[in-house]
């Protein structure tokens, strides 16, 4: 271990060079997208592609945000936010409550319910997408926020995570709360919930990105452009047949689509890391 830390001379330059090349490989496409979002359509179409940002940044982004191709990006961003937040908050609320029930209450078929929830881990959205579509369509929830959110809300992963956390909470704590006079609801709200806040933050980040990046489901159930979410909306911007793609606007949209998840990660990073590595005892 100490050898790794104290390495000096050529080695350190080589490792840094390796890291820099790695970062460049990851970042170059994003840079290309950025460049493409600052030039005009003919400039992109004519090889070689420009590598220096052009002067049309504001024009392109304004065009994307206000007009877009099928619907304004601002609207798609809003739709995506509603869906991502709905999925995130819904998943956290439902899974923390079901984990509470499973860990702290003795009821018939408790373990059967737990395993049923656990089994759904093996059935991601894509596997059950046809029957789910049937159900959502039957309820008339196509082209609605409810239809976008509801089928994705049940979460075995989050339930499992909260269950594991609750199992580490010492029994004496609930006993102390009982002696103090706290009933089940008070114990949950006053003690368990505040103790889970780092776990909630970590889940919030993971689930927000999961919700934001949903592609197949929104593609299937939103047919009206004004209900498009941004991740699937980008695909919808591609022209069919021989139409010319408006690449600067599409690239601007792509970069805009990246911003909210990045912001969530940056702002919640502290809590996120804490939630994954430490449990407060």
């Amino acid at each position, binding site marked *: 271990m100490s050898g790794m830390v104290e390495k000096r001379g050529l080695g350190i330059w080589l490792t840094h060079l390796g890291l820099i090349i790695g970062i460049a490989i990851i970042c170059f496409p994003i840079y290309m997208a950025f460049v493409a979002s600052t030039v005009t359509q003919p400039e992109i179409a004519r090889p070689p592609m420009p590598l220096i940002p052009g002067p049309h940044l504001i024009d392109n982004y304004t065009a994307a945000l206000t007009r877009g191709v099928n619907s304004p990006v601002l609207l798609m961003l809003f739709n995506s936010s509603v869906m991502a937040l709905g999925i995130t908050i819904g998943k956290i609320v439902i899974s923390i409550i079901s984990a509470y029930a499973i860990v702290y209450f003795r009821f018939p078929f408790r373990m059967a319910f737990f395993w049923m929830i656990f089994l759904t881990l093996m059935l991601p959205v894509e596997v059950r997408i046809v029957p789910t579509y049937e159900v959502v369509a039957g309820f008339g929830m196509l082209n609605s926020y409810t239809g976008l959110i509801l089928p994705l809300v049940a979460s075995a992963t989050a339930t499992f995570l909260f269950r594991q956390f609750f199992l580490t909470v010492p029994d004496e704590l609930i*006993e102390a709360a009982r002696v103090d006079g706290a009933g089940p609801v008070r114990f949950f709200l006053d003690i368990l919930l505040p103790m889970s806040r780092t776990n909630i933050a970590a889940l919030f980040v993971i689930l927000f990105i999961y919700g934001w990046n949903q592609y197949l489901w929104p593609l299937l159930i939103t047919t009206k452009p004004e209900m498009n979410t941004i991740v699937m909306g980008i695909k919808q911007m591609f022209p069919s047949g021989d139409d010319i793609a408006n690449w600067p606007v599409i690239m601007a949209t792509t970069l805009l689509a990246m911003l909210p998840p990045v912001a969530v990660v940056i702002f919640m990073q502290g809590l996120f890391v804490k939630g994954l590595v430490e449990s407060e005892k």
Partner: protein
Amino acid sequence: MAKIGFSNVRKSYGPTEVIHGVDAEIADGELIVIVGPSGCGKSTLLRMVAGLETITAGEIRIGDRVVNDLEPRERDIAMVFQNYALYPHMSVFDNMAYGLKIAGVPKAEIAERVAQAAKMLELEPYLDRKPRQLSGGQRQRVAMGRAIVRKPSVFLFDEPLSNLDAKLRVQMRVEIKTLQRRLGVTSLYVTHDQVEAMTMADRIIVMNGGNAEQVGTPLAVYHKPATVFVGGFIGSPPMNFLQAARLQASGLLRKVAEVGGAAGALNTVGVRPEHLAFCSEGEAVLSGKLMIAEALGAETLAHVELDDGERMIVRIEGGREVPAAGARVHLSCTSEHLHYFGADGKRLPD
């Protein structure tokens, strides 16, 4: 303030009975220590008083009420847990105030009661801190504070000192005892440490295998152990035991008609380490080889292996000269210091 009564209290987990009928009466303001080896049911008994375990059979009374079917919060008790069980996300103040807050006590009164308890426990500088920022001893005090502010009629302590280091334990032992005296609240205190039991208790309940083997004052339990188990458990180092038949020839045994395995007959003789002494071969009751001598300063504990292989511990004053390890030694004692037990392990009448 309240009396506590146990009548024929039993506890079973499925078909396994772990407490086999405990009877005891605890007077108002008394500090009772329940002591026993691990797995003897002492914590279970305490948790039954707290309402954290159901009572399978029998009756527990607090004050004039039978509490069998009451929720913990309705029993007017406060409990201090072994690992303190402080709420990790709450400040010291909030930890102490939580029970009162739930009970709907007005804010001003909560603040006053917490301040009072904090002063009593010297916790005033720490009221804003979180439990993880406190040392073990301070957490222990917060747990005590949480119990005190509720002004319950019964305190329950579940091995509260076993997570502290030895020095702090001795200090907290005295503090808890002093505090309990001052507040005059009836207390049940569970421990496996017989020194804690001896030093703190008004009366001790010695438990073994789900039975209360003896209930009595510390000195009564020490001087007149009701069973072989109590004799061996209370007192450090423990009482020495010998088959009575071995002493028959010595002329030490008195007033006992029969020696042997029959009911009511004398079977085992116990003698405390401090009641054995080294002597010359002529006066010897027992003889053997000195295995090792542990010099503790104020006293020396000599481990002697008798000729038939049984081990005895002899406690002698620190200043006395001790034979060298491996030397042949002779032991004497007087008949009034012998404890007589029957084949069933019960003490025989003197």
